[in-house]
């Protein structure tokens, strides 16, 4: 791979294709310090997208050959509109369906074909050998996250995802495998499912020492894939991506609840922390669905709302620590 970096916002962007075309996929993670972007995007839009927009303009990220914006929500579409007017960026809009049936798969397949054409316009070339190796590497990540070894210290998963961002998936797998084998959890650690939107580093840090099942696009949702089924590469990738544990933006919330039911059967979940991202409509309705689900299962749930700001850590500290203390106290009895 020598074609430079391709930045992307949403994990529905297939890194396999980017690597197969000779580029390094680089996830646009929120910056460690919030960067203002009010003059680019309204302050009542998704804080994740706003912060990435500000960080991109300030030179926080390395140089990108191109940027892929999946149309995950309206905020990301606004971001695309801004970037597409800038001369400095080659940007591609990956239109992501809101449903996951056969028609949606066909539509997404066409989107992936267009993405490949765009990558070729940037000088990439879909190399059979590199593509095959990349598909194997992404499949390996899926295997590593598939079984019960998904429990880990959240802080380590977060660091791994940041440290290996923009590096070949093979290197990430090696680090992840070593880390999962050597993981050293503290005695009496609580087992917490962290769900909802992409969490701020501060929330992850508060949970240091606890066992975290990370159901966000930095964890399970970002790394699992469905089966590679289809007649050609693009239909197989389309199937695999649309049939992974769905993001809350998809309209069929039932599959998400099926994932939680499976997790409840295989993992001992003592509590759930829901990260509600400010100004995210999807978070608002996803939380209500999850609230009912966890109440029915008698699993304590805490909602933590942030805008990914560093200064919010103090405010959420008491809330999260108190929640952990109530779990340690043993609940209703």
């Amino acid at each position, binding site marked *: 791979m020598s074609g430079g970096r391709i930045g992307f916002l949403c994990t529905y962007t297939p890194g396999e294709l980017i690597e197969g075309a000779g580029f390094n996929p680089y996830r646009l993670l929120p910056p460690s310090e919030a960067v203002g972007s009010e003059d680019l995007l309204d302050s009542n839009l998704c804080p994740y997208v706003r912060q990435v927009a500000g960080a991109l303009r300030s030179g926080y990220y390395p140089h990108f050959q191109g940027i892929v914006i999946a149309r995950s929500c309206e905020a990301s579409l606004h971001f695309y509109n801004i970037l597409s007017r800038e001369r400095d960026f080659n940007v591609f809009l990956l239109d992501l369906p809101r449903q996951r049936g056969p028609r949606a798969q066909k539509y997404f397949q066409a989107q992936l074909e267009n993405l490949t054409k765009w990558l070729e316009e940037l000088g990439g070339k879909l190399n059979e050998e590199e593509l095959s190796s990349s598909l194997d590497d992404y499949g390996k990540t899926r295997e590593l996250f598939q079984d019960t070894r998904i429990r880990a210290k959240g802080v380590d998963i977060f660091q791994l995802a940041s440290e290996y961002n923009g590096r070949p998936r093979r290197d990430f797998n090696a680090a992840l495998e070593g880390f999962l084998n050597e993981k050293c959890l503290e005695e009496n650690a609580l087992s917490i499912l962290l769900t909802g939107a992409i969490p701020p580093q501060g929330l992850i840090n508060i949970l240091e020492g606890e066992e975290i099942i990370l159901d966000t696009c930095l964890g399970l949702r970002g790394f699992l894939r469905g089966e590679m089924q289809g007649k050609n590469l693009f239909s197989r990738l389309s199937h695999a991506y649309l049939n992974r544990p769905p993001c809350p933006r998809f309209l069929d919330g039932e599959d998400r609840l099926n994932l939680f039911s499976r997790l409840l059967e295989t993992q001992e979940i003592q509590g759930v922390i829901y990260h509600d991202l400010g100004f995210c409509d999807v978070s608002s309705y996803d939380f209500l669905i999850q609230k009912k689900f966890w109440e029915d299962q008698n699993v304590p749930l805490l909602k933590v709302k942030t805008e990914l700001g560093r200064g919010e850590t103090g*405010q959420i500290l*008491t809330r999260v620590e108190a929640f952990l203390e109530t779990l340690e106290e043993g609940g209703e*009895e």
Partner: protein
Amino acid sequence: MLYAGIDVGSLSTDVVLVDSDLQIKGYSIIPTGADSKKAAGESLDEALSQAGASQEDIGEIIATGYGRISVSFASDRVTEITCHARGANRLFPQAKTVIDIGGQDSKAIRLNRRGRAVDFAMNDKCAAGTGRFLEVMARALELDLEELAGHSLKAEKTVPISNMCAVFAESEVVSLIAEGNPREEIIKGLHVSVAERTLSLARRIGYQSPVVMTGGVAKNAGVIRALEEKLETELLIPEEPQIIGALGAAVIAFERAQKEVS
């Protein structure tokens, strides 16, 4: 041997010392000011002096409150949610709910049969319904904070306050004064607005009687009356409601010390 609980709040730093029978041997309440570590040390010294004891007599120290992290000499730190639950349970073992309204935030805590916190709701992102809210309103009304309750209890009617935000509510109060509304009725309206805010927190945890009220605002008889009407129950008020978080921390300090011995 004594066991200390230190509650570093936004307005006051409170210390309670208990003995092995969990009897309060000394306590202090001092303003936190700008240096919370210094305030914790001074408050501890004051409580020790009241108990006629010295630092060598302390077996374990637990820090709580928003400034708990700054108490470097504490053995451990526990949140104020857990500490208020334990403190309220120590004084009122029958309590099922704790309402704590402090200077900077307010909380409703549901207790289990053992008096441990099992659920809570917090208002920690704005000053609405907190001690700070009342402090700002007292200033607008040119009264001392302590005078609010007396005026409120004299009011025959209530002037409703529609803004929950401390900043907007202050403007509203100024307008109500200009319109010639009696000060007593405005104050009663403010207390009702605090009670309504607290009721929404209490409902979120499914509050049950008996309800204990803790925190500095529990010294305000006007808020207590408004809250009792909203919650439709008589509140249990500790003799000194401001030290309940520190008392809970001291109880935990004793229990931790016992665990270490065994």
